[in-house]
């Protein structure tokens, strides 16, 4: 009898527990019922807060060297697996790769730098495609600090730029601040079979990559990953030279001062498509833009007489500066000889197809 009473007591305790459980399970299933897949159109409206990244007080250095006097393991950074046309193995050994503050003296003296600004950081974000010309798509974007209005920005090249002098957001180092412009460099040598080249050095001083981005989305028609790529590199000095492998003697330094590269591959009308073909080769393709139908553009090429919308479409395609790649070099010099400035402006990639081929087969 007593046991039964106790059992009822437990049951009484259990009742609210069951109620809680029922509520919990009910809540859970209610949540499940609320989840629905979103279509492309709905998803394209998603414009959440992205994630910002800033590297503060940052130095990076990696490379290859001999074991030190204490027998510490040598550092190795090697790229292999490439074959020459004659089938010999190609080995690229990276002796030094660094990212450090301005004034590193070609990587000799590594000092810290900031990458990205708190008010204009590196970003990973899902953006509304309608804002960037990719209609009704949610676009994944990885972006360097964006360019800013000339009134607020800094000269992209000048090492001592003051506010209001240009469109770059990253600031050069000045007395009190280490700045957001990095010295970057790479020393490597290449061996083809048993022949090893001299060391090749590439350095960019006080480099800024503001305005660069990679955007990725899925293309409905081709059912394929599509993208846009923009790489800006501004540096007061980019240099290349070759040195003997022990570093004792170096050839002339090729210097490109006031170097500005704005490389655009893929745009909103012609994205880059990535694919791998049936034999396992990588394909990167920028599709040609569709030709106008017969009669849409007048014989004289003028707007009058052409279909206005078609004419405007092609006019925008050919005149949009965002679709064009540029390269400016303030002065090109080899050793103590100057060759003056060089400019390549307004390059438009109309069709590009890169396909890897396995030479070993």
């Amino acid at each position, binding site marked *: 009898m*007593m*046991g039964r009473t*106790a*059992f009822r007591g*437990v049951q009484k305790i*259990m009742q609210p*527990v069951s109620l809680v459980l029922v509520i919990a399970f009910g809540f859970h299933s209610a949540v499940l019922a609320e989840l629905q897949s979103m279509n492309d159109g709905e998803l394209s409206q998603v*414009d*959440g*807060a*992205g*994630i*910002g*990244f*800033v*590297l*503060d*007080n*940052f*130095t*990076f*250095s*990696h490379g*290859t*060297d001999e074991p030190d006097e204490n027998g*510490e*393991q*040598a*550092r*190795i*950074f*090697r*790229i*292999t*697996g*490439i074959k020459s046309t004659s089938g010999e193995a190609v080995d690229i050994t990276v002796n030094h790769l660094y990212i450090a503050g301005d004034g590193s003296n070609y990587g000799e003296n*590594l000092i*810290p730098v*900031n990458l990205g*600004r*708190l*008010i204009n*950081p590196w*970003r990973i*974000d899902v953006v509304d495609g309608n804002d960037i010309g990719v209609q009704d798509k949610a676009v994944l974007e990885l972006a360097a600090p964006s360019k800013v209005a000339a009134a607020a920005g800094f000269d992209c090249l000048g090492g001592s730029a003051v506010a209001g002098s240009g469109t770059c957001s990253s600031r050069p180092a000045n007395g009190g*601040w280490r700045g957001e412009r990095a010295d970057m460099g790479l020393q490597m040598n290449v061996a083809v079979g048993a022949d090893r080249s001299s060391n090749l050095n590439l350095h960019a001083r006080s480099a800024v990559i503001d305005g660069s981005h990679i955007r990725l989305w899925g293309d409905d028609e*081709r059912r*394929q*990953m599509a993208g846009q790529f923009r790489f800006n590199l501004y540096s007061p000095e980019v240099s290349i030279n070759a040195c003997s492998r022990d570093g004792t003697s170096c050839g002339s330094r090729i210097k490109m001062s006031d170097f500005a590269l704005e490389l655009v591959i893929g745009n909103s009308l012609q994205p880059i*498509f*990535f*694919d*791998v*073909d*049936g*034999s*396992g*080769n*990588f394909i990167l393709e920028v599709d040609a833009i569709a030709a106008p139908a017969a009669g849409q553009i007048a014989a004289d090429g003028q707007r009058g007489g052409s279909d206005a919308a078609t004419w405007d479409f092609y006019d925008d395609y050919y005149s949009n500066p965002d679709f064009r790649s540029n390269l400016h070099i303030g002065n090109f010099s080899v050793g103590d000889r100057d060759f003056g400035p060089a400019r390549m402006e307004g390059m438009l990639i109309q069709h590009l197809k890169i396909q*890897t081929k396995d030479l070993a087969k």
Partner: protein
Amino acid sequence: MNHKLLSPCVRTPLVCFLLALPLSGVAEMSPLADEVLSGVSGQGGIYLSGDIRINEVGGPIENSYFGRCDDATKKCGARFAYRLKETGGWLVLDDIRGSFAFEGLTLGLTTIDSGFAGDGDLFNGDALELGLPNTVRFSDVRFKIAASNAPRPTDPGFQQTDIFAVEMQGNVIMEGNLLVFPAGNP
């Protein structure tokens, strides 16, 4: 008599124990007011030392695509394949293996309202701060970029073109702090 009294819990002791736990928990908890909560200050963050090994001497699953590194007939290392087109081939990160060791990776939350040459004042917010460990030791870290017509080497008609392979060894200097925070227009 006593055993009868306890009988429901004796029958399902685990259930009773589990049910009792949250109940006692609920009884102990009381909500903290905003003002009280604003006064709470936790420990400074997390200090991590790590030794991460990825398939250093081959995986435990011994078949032709995730096998032992000392057996040339078997594939070694982890493999990550990504398809770029609905009917297309796969971009592959293959033979991923090696180990990383680091000491002193810190993780904490920091409030920034000054410094950064004027940006701190404008930012005036919290950021997740990941303190980089100064040196990261790479031991035989390798991976390979490749393109393949099938996700796994065991798939019929498998063909793969290795594009290049990377090998890293030794100490890498990685100094500074990585600050992570929300950005953009929510």
